[in-house]
C-alpha cells in the first residue's frame, strides 16, 4: 500500500496496512537539521511520508511588500500582515474598517493560474503515490483575521451579524471556487485550517457556531464531496462543545484532538471513532519542543493505542513541525508511528480503544 492508498483508507475509517503520517508544515530548520540540503519535496521522499500539505496562504496567495524592515505586507484580502520567524503572517490592520468599505470591495480572483503552480509541481512528483492535501483557510478565520480583525469580528457577530454573513458568503464563494480548481488540477484531499477554540473552550457559543461557523464549513464539505474528494477540519483548542456540530457538517476527519487543551484521543475514539477519522494528537507544544525522544515515543505509542484500532487514525503533530521542535523528537515520533502503527495493532499494543459512534444529537 502506498501513502495515498493508506491515507484514503484512514480517512474513510477503514484499516490500512500502517497508520499514516504527514504534516501540513515542516519548518526548514527542522528539515535541515535532519537531512541538510534537501528541498521540502526531497525531504518528504527521504522520510517516506504518506502525504504532503500545501497551505493556501503559503502557496496560492499573493502578498505585496509594504515595509521590508518591519516585515509588513498586504495580504490578498487587503489586510496588512506582519511576518516573523514562523511562516504565517498575522494581520495588523484589517481590510474592512466600515460596512461601506465592503460595499465597494473587490474579491481576489481564485481562477488566476499561478495559484496552482506549486500544486502542479507536487502533483507531477507525487501523484498517485503520496496524498496531496491542499490547505484551505476556514471562512471564519479569514473574515476574523483579514477582513474585520478579531475584536471587531466578535463584536459584529452580536451587533452587525448581517455584515459578518455578507463577508463570509463572499469568502466562501472564493474558497469553493479555489477548491474546485484544486480538484481539477489534481489535488487528492483538503485540510480546512482555522481555529474555532482556545485551550479553554470555543471562541463562540455553540448557538453562534451553528449560525456563523458551521454553515460555511458544511458548504465546503459538500463541495469537496460533490467533487469526490475528502476533507479534514483543523482547529486547535478545546473543541468538545462543538464536536457534534463539526461532525454533522460531514467532514471526514478532525485534527488535532488538541492535547494542550486537554482533549484525549481515547475519548475521541470511543465517542466519535465510528463517525470521523481522527488526526493528530502528538503535542507540538512542550512535548515536541522540550520533551525527550523517549517521552515522544511513549506519547506516540499511546496515541496509536487510543486512536488506531480498525483504522481511522492519521498520526500527526498537534499543529505543525514548527521551528522549535527538536529534530530528534520529530524523528522519534516518525519511528514510533512505524513501530507501533503496523496493522494489526494487537501485535504491538494491548488495551486498544474501540471506536464508538455517538448518536447524532
Amino acid at each position, binding site marked *: 500500500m502506498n501513502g495515498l492508498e493508506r491515507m484514503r483508507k484512514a480517512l474513510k475509517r477503514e484499516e490500512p496496512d500502517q497508520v499514516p503520517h504527514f504534516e501540513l508544515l515542516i519548518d526548514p530548520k527542522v528539515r535541515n537539521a535532519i537531512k541538510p540540503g534537501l528541498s521540502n519535496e526531497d525531504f518528504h521522499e527521504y522520510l517516506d511520508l504518506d502525504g504532503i500539505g500545501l497551505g493556501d496562504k503559503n502557496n496560492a496567495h499573493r502578498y505585496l511588500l509594504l515595509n521590508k524592515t518591519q516585515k509588513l505586507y498586504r495580504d490578498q484580502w487587503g489586510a496588512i500582515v506582519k511576518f*516573523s520567524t*514562523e511562516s504565517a503572517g*498575522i494581520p495588523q490592520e484589517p481590510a474592512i474598517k466600515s460596512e461601506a468599505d465592503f460595499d465597494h470591495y473587490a474579491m481576489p480572483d481564485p481562477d488566476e493560474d499561478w495559484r496552482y503552480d506549486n500544486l502542479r509541481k507536487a502533483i507531477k512528483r507525487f501523484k498517485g503515490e503520496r496524498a496531496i492535501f491542499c490547505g484551505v483557510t476556514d471562512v471564519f478565520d479569514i473574515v476574523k483575521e483579514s477582513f474585520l480583525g478579531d475584536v471587531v469580528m*466578535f463584536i459584529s457577530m452580536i451587533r452587525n451579524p448581517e455584515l459578518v454573513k455578507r463577508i463570509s458568503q463572499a469568502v466562501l464563494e472564493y474558497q469553493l471556487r479555489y477548491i474546485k480548481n484544486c480538484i481539477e488540477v489534481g489535488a487528492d484531499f483538503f485540510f480546512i485550517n482555522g481555529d474555532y477554540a*482556545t485551550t479553554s*473552550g470555543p471562541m463562540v*457559543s455553540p448557538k453562534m457556531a451553528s449560525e456563523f461557523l458551521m454553515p460555511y464549513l458544511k458548504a465546503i464539505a459538500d463541495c469537496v464531496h460533490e467533487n469526490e474528494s475528502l476533507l479534514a477540519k483543523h482547529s486547535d483548542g478545546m473543541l468538545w462543545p462543538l464536536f457534534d456540530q463539526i461532525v454533522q457538517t460531514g467532514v471526514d476527519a478532525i485534527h488535532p484532538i488538541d492535547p494542550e487543551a486537554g482533549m484525549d484521543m481515547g475519548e475521541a475514539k470511543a465517542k466519535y471513532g465510528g463517525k470521523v477519522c481522527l488526526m493528530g494528537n502528538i503535542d507540538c*507544544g512542550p512535548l515536541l519542543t522540550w520533551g525527550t525522544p523517549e517521552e515522544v515515543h511513549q506519547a506516540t505509542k499511546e496515541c496509536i493505542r487510543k486512536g488506531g484500532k480498525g483504522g481511522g487514525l492519521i498520526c500527526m503533530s498537534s499543529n505543525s513541525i514548527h521551528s522549535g521542535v527538536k529534530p530528534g523528537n520529530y524523528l522519534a515520533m516518525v519511528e514510533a508511528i512505524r513501530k507501533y502503527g503496523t496493522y494489526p495493532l494487537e501485535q504491538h499494543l494491548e488495551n486498544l480503544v474501540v471506536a464508538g459512534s455517538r448518536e447524532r444529537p
Partner: protein
Amino acid sequence: MFDFVKIRDSLIGGDIEKTEALTADALEAGVPAKEILDKGLIPGLDEVGRRFQNGEYFFPELLVAGEAVKKALALLRPELMKSGSATTGKYVIGTVKGDIHDIGKNIVIMMLEGNGWEVTDLGIDVPTKTFVKEVRKKEYQILGMSALLTTTIPRLSETIEALKKEGLRDRVKIMVGGVSVTRGYAEQIGADGYGRDAVEAVAVAKKLIGK
C-alpha cells in the same frame, strides 16, 4: 436612590446603548461617577467575567460588555478625573519578539480598558529592549507580556532578566500569559502574576496593585 441593577443588567445583556444611556441618566441625577462605576458597571462586568469562565459566555459576549463599559467610562471620566480616580492604573502590554499571535492580547486589552485601565499596546513581535525602554519611562504599574509559541516563551524570562540587569525590575509588576505559559512557569521565571484567560488577567492585575 438610583437603581444600579439596571446598569448591571444592561451590561450583562450586552446592550451598549442602554448601558450608555443609563450611565448618562445616573450622572444627570447627580449620582457620583465612582458610585456608578463601583455599584453598576464593575459588578456587571464581574458577572460577565464569571459567565465567561463558566462557559456560559464566549468572546462575543465578553467583548460587547467590554465595549459597553468603555463607552460608559468615557462619560464618567471627566467626573472621575475631578475626584482623582480616573483610571484604575497604567498597564503596558505586548507580545514578545518572534511571536505574532495577538488574539489573546487583544481580548486582555479590551477587558483591562473595560475595567478602567489605561493600556499602552506595544503590539506583536516586541523586542526585549522595547519592553525595557517602556518600563524606564516609570509610567506603568504593570507590564504584561504574552507568548503563544513554545519557541518564544524564553523571551519572557529574558525580558525579566534584562529589567533586573538595568535595575528596573522593581518599577513594575510583571504579568505573563499565553497558551503554552503555565502558572508554574510564571513563578519559575519570577513573574508577579499569571492569567489563564482575560478575566483572570484583569482580576490578577487589580490584586497586584492592591485594588
